[in-house]
């Protein structure tokens, strides 16, 4: 614990400010320093990953995306039999081959596919699928077996085993909550929705420097507070995840450190493409600016909600697909303009697909396996995995052909150059999308 805190403080002192700088440095001087040293500090900011290191963006389609209406099996009669109202006619789909076409709204993804930057992985799921949003999301976030409840996330375990001593911003989640995927015994990763609010504001203080000094010193938990009697007392607490106050102190320290850096990057960067106006686009725009600005972040986490289409699915799902497609197109254009497209791999997932048969409310209920997509400059394009059967079902649901942890293992091993077993606890067959 103490070691980590020390490392974090050390990181701030040496990497960001380029040398040992006292906490008591007046705020205005610090800001001046940032501005003057912005370019020079660039190399320091890059230390943990370097300018050429790979970046992973994880996109969660929350609510259970209807895989069958995303990657449409227009060559399969069973699809049309199961969905008299919701099936998309083959002629309308954006054909990838003789059997599958993309949802008609995914025109940007179709272009990426044609350029050779998009892979679709078919029938992704896990044995004994759980149809609860929460449980299944937890399974995807923690990479556990269906019957095992695992507390920590797969990204958290990756940070733990491969990114020791690095910046807390090694993982960045866009949103106000930290995803369970980042959970770890010593959690790392920061989350925020709007960068301009990610900053301690002392504009109204009567003595700004004194207030800033006080604030920074009470959020500097290396000293007496952590060394003294209180830590022993805290350690006796029953909560396995550590004491609540200790958790708050770590979060506070991370916030203070990372907010300085984010503010600096946002100040310097401009969006490199024109984004549509929706939440997902805002999130991806922010990610692109942080990547372009040189954050040492290895994993970004974004999400799009609304996929739980139990009723009146047709229009709702179409709008979601359109929003998804236009946001991703802008994001990719931005990364290409930056010259970072080859450094970035984006993978989508959803906690489950929908049931094959539509329901009486013009919607679909919770299902199981579904396709996901992977895109980026270095992706090997095409459709990976066998087409799932729509007639041989388990409880009305598609049986998975690819374990989702095979996707994770591929990303870890072939993209992040990380060992798989410390993160996923065993090995999984690798897939050919990278």
């Amino acid at each position, binding site marked *: 614990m103490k070691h980590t805190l020390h490392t974090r403080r050390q990181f701030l002192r040496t990497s960001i400010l380029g040398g040992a700088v006292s906490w008591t440095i007046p705020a205005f001087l610090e800001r001046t320093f940032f501005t003057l040293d912005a370019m020079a500090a660039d190399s320091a900011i890059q230390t943990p990953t370097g300018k050429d290191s790979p970046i992973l963006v994880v996109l969660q389609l929350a609510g259970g995306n209807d895989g069958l209406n995303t990657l449409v099996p227009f060559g399969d009669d069973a699809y049309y039999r199961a969905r008299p109202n919701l099936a998309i006619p083959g002629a309308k789909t954006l054909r990838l081959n003789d059997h599958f076409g993309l949802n008609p709204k995914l025109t940007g993804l179709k272009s990426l596919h044609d350029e050779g930057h998009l892979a679709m992985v078919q029938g992704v799921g896990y044995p004994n699928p759980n*149809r*609860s*949003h*929460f*449980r299944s999301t937890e399974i995807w976030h923690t990479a556990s077996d269906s019957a095992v409840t695992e507390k920590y996330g797969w990204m958290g375990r990756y940070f733990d085993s491969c990114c020791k001593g690095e910046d*807390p911003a090694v993982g960045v*989640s866009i949103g*106000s*909550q*930290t995803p369970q995927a980042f959970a770890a015994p010593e959690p790392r990763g*920061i*989350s*925020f*929705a709007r960068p301009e*609010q*990610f*900053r*301690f*504001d*002392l504009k*109204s*203080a*009567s*003595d700004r420097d*004194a*207030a800033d000094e*006080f*604030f920074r*010193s*009470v*959020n500097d938990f290396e*000293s*007496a*507070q952590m060394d*003294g009697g209180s830590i022993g007392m805290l350690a006796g*607490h*029953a*909560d396995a*995840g550590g*004491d*609540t*106050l200790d*958790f*708050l*102190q770590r*979060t*506070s320290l*991370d*916030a203070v450190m*990372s*907010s300085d850096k984010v503010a600096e990057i946002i100040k310097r960067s401009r969006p490199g493409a024109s984004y549509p106006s929706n939440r997902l686009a805002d999130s991806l725009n922010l990610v692109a600016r942080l990547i372009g600005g040189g954050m040492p972040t290895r994993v970004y986490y974004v999400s799009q909600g609304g996929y739980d289409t*139990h*009723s009146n699915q047709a229009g709702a799902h179409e709008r979601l697909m359109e929003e998804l497609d236009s946001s991703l197109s802008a994001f990719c254009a931005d990364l290409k303009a930056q010259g970072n497209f080859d450094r970035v791999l984006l993978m989508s997932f959803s906690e489950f697909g929908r049931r094959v048969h539509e*329901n*009486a*409310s013009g*919607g679909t*209920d*919770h299902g199981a396996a579904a396709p996901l997509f992977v895109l980026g400059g270095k992706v090997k394009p095409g459709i990976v995995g066998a087409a799932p059967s729509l007639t041989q079902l388990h*409880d009305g649901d598609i049986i998975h052909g690819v374990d989702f942890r095979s996707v994770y293992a591929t990303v870890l091993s072939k993209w992040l150059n990380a060992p798989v077993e410390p993160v996923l606890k065993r090995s999984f067959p690798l897939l050919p999308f990278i």
Partner: protein
Amino acid sequence: MLTPLPSREWTLPAAAHLLNRAAFGGSPEEIQRLHAMGHAAAVRSLIRRGEEEDLFPAPELVPMNYRRIAKTSMTPEELAAAKKIMQIQLREQTQEARAWWIRRMASTPFPAREKCVLFWHGHWATSIEKVKDPFLILQQNQTLRAHAFGPFAPFAKEISKDPAMIRYLDLNSSKVGHPNENFARELMELFTLGEGHYSEEDIQELARAFTGYRIHPVTGSFRFFPKEHDSGVKKIFGKFRPFDGDAAIDLIVSRPECAEFLSAKLWNFYAGEKPSAPLNELLASEYRASGMNTGDFLEKIFLSREFYTSNYLRRQIKSPIQWLLQTCKVLERPLPDFRMVQNTLGQLGQVLFAPPNVKGWDGGRAWVSSSTLLLRYNLAGRLVREGGGSMPDIEKILPASASPQQACDLLAWRFFQGPMSTELRDKTLHLLEKNGNSPAARHDIVHLLMSTPDFQLI
């Protein structure tokens, strides 16, 4: 059974703990008053009293009649204009409902019931984002209030027939031959038994019991369509009977896991962490002994020694609503204007009538991330320094005449309901000595003490 707290352990910090957890905290004087009542009377005053309903008249709304709009013979332009008006109405009325409830929480003399209503709102989580009708949401809110401290089984039956819930979990299109499983699944997974205590078959069969539940389009009340109800025999938990919804709920509530699931959830909400298995056995038996009457059960908890053990004191992270209301109470200032309330709760992640999903708010550590923590620090500054005519009275919070040592004691008790750590106290003393006692300097120190991890805890 739980052990009662010996009367010598009914101290000021115990009273502060009770007021923090059972309600939304209070000023030093309010804690003093609660303590002076004695423990049993203090608990009774929280659980057993209710304000007159006409003290907080609810906004008078009517159901949004989407269907009537779509059916009239309008031109596409007229239809689009009408839809736009509906959207504005939806937004404005939702805000009106929110403003009403948050004001009620902040100023009722009976905040413990509102806190319990907030618990149930997170439990029977229903969102305006899907329901799209403030009338229905407000109607549900009144149902929650009427049953908050009452027995669970009738509450569950009432909620299964609550039109907002019916719309939220798609019961309104569930009919014989085509049951929609959404409500049945969440009823068992999230509302009564918890995951793993039922089979997929139980869900499919249970869904048949709730077929035919509908919403009256004009009055917004529940109605039952026998023709769309599946009156056949269902097999639920191995029992073959022609269950209807109420009978199915009786069966579910009688399962031992139901009391266990709810006692653990209530304890987690009020005590701040999940109970150990042996403790939850005690809690569940207390809950059963009360006839699963939540008010009686909470009274037992608030009188128990277990609730006041040091494991639970100052260990719970304030929810955004708790943070906002308690911040106003300790600053002895009114709620800020509704716009700021709305922004605050939105940014901190707890918008009333819009829980993130049917599981409600995760709570606990999920309330805090690096981003929401900085937001709390910044918003505290605004609540200390802004508010036009309703600025906090800094002279009451921290008299200019107080010595730095006295000032530390006063601030620690008001903001943390306990002593500061040695280090925080030293730094506070240092700043007080350095900055003097001008009102602006005192505002600064108050803001800074609220911009600490410690202030996030109750």
